[in-house]
């Protein structure tokens, strides 16, 4: 299990404040938030690239201070940065960096490259952005990690591959041990696939929990404006007034849905209303 407890990290004016969450085994966890919400900082801390100023990060009960090498063996990753050497081919890069991993499977890597239609012999720098990410994804899978950490890779994938990507991710977690942390802005896919959600805003974790609880907790109510305005303010995150009908994102409480249409909020709706909130609760 990945565990963040009251983790703080200041980077210039930006600060991740008291981030706490757990990612259990066998789940697909979405990490969402606006640009600059702190997703990449959290991922960098999780991967031990930056140290927290305060708080504790443990991975399967281990911390970077004492078990750095053992922790790193557990991670496969696709990051926004281009991690591979530009003047080596994907195959050479795989073999070069794979030699640091005991579990690196050369055949699996080549098989993945083939499956993703990547030429293993071109220079890495000659590949498109999407192909580069696919290469790193192939490498991440071939080191047989327990945790896959993916920082916004899906936006650069073509729709055809995106389906394949989700199949692979589901297959990866199907053993009930492996988990995936995926930071993305493509929330439709997460709505369908994610088991867990971490929503960040301005460096704070606003929501962390399973998707079922998220859907129960955050509801979209639509209907007459006056009915929405009758709802106690502490339950309302945002009301958007329309010409004919209005919509509100509320923290679900029974008893105020009379005359209103109630549906679970999608991640996108939640993000939209949260960003427009007035007196957010």
């Amino acid at each position, binding site marked *: 299990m990945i565990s963040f407890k009251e983790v703080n990290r200041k*980077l210039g004016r930006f600060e991740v404040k008291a981030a706490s969450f757990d990612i259990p085994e066998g789940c697909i966890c979405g990490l969402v938030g606006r640009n600059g919400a702190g997703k990449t900082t959290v991922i*960098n801390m999780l*991967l*031990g*690239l*930056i*140290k927290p100023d305060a708080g504790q990060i443990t991975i399967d009960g281990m911390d970077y201070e004492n078990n*750095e*090498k*053992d922790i*790193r*063996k557990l*991670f496969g*990753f696709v*990051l926004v*940065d281009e*991690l*591979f*050497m*530009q*003047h*080596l081919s994907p195959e*050479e890069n795989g073999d*070069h*960096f794979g*030699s*640091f*991993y*005991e579990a690196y499977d050369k055949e699996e890597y080549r098989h993945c490259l083939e499956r993703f239609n990547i030429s293993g012999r071109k220079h890495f720098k000659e590949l498109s952005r999407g192909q580069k990410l696919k290469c790193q994804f192939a490498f991440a899978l071939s080191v047989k990690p327990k945790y896959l950490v993916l920082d916004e890779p899906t936006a650069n994938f073509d729709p055809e591959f995106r389906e394949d990507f989700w199949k692979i991710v589901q297959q990866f977690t199907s053993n009930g041990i492996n988990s995936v942390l995926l930071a993305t802005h493509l929330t439709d896919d997460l709505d369908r696939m994610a088991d867990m959600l971490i929503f960040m805003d301005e460096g704070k974790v606003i929501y962390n929990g399973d998707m079922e609880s998220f859907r129960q907790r955050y509801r979209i109510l639509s209907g007459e404006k006056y009915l929405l305005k009758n709802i106690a303010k502490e339950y309302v995150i945002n009301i958007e007034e329309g010409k004919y009908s209005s919509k509100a994102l509320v923290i679900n409480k029974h008893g105020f849905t009379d005359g209103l249409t109630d549906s679970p909020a999608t991640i996108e709706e939640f993000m939209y209303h949260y960003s427009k909130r007035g007196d957010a609760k």
Partner: protein
Amino acid sequence: MIGKLINDYICTGKGMSLKETPRGVGDIAMFPLTLQVIAIVRGIMLGGVKYLWTDAIRDSIFTIAFFIIWISQIKHPIKMSRMYYLCPMNADERVAYIKNAYFFRCIFHSILIVTACIILYTVFDVSLYSLLYILLCGLMYSFLSNVRDNKTDFMRAVFLKPAMYISSYIQFAVPASHFGRDEMIFTVCSFAFLLIVELPMFISVIRAINDDIRVVATGEDYSRC
């Protein structure tokens, strides 16, 4: 391991433009300035002595060896790409990896210097003392690297390189006959310069390089971002 280090050397060199390297452009500008100084030194010491084509070949061999090392040092600073921090290694293993990469470069540089010395000694007229001086100076030169944070040591490294290059050049460029009976004084002065000026600066730079290796290996760079 050697394969990894060769890949690392080739790729970091190819992948890094001089503009990206820490203070690389300023450092590379020192090379033509150094050649300028050499031209002046030659003019002062050997004004009127004919510059033969054999002299040109000899100077070129020497200059090319030093220039390749100069560029190599700029293009291969003590640095690790982000991917290495993500691979399963602890800080000690990263220190070992960076040190191996550094020594790999130094050995490559040393081979260039030794080759140049062998050619100078066997083909051209260079005295044994001069050869010894060039060899010592060249080997120290091979171990230099661009220092990152410590400005004093960076400046030392920047000025040590031209100093070593010029003082080595003088050893063979000025024929022994030019000094007559003063050759021993010239040799003593040269070695005194090596021991009193160059060696302490060299030791200081090596210490700074050692500090850099530790900083890079622990990833303190990323933590500071």
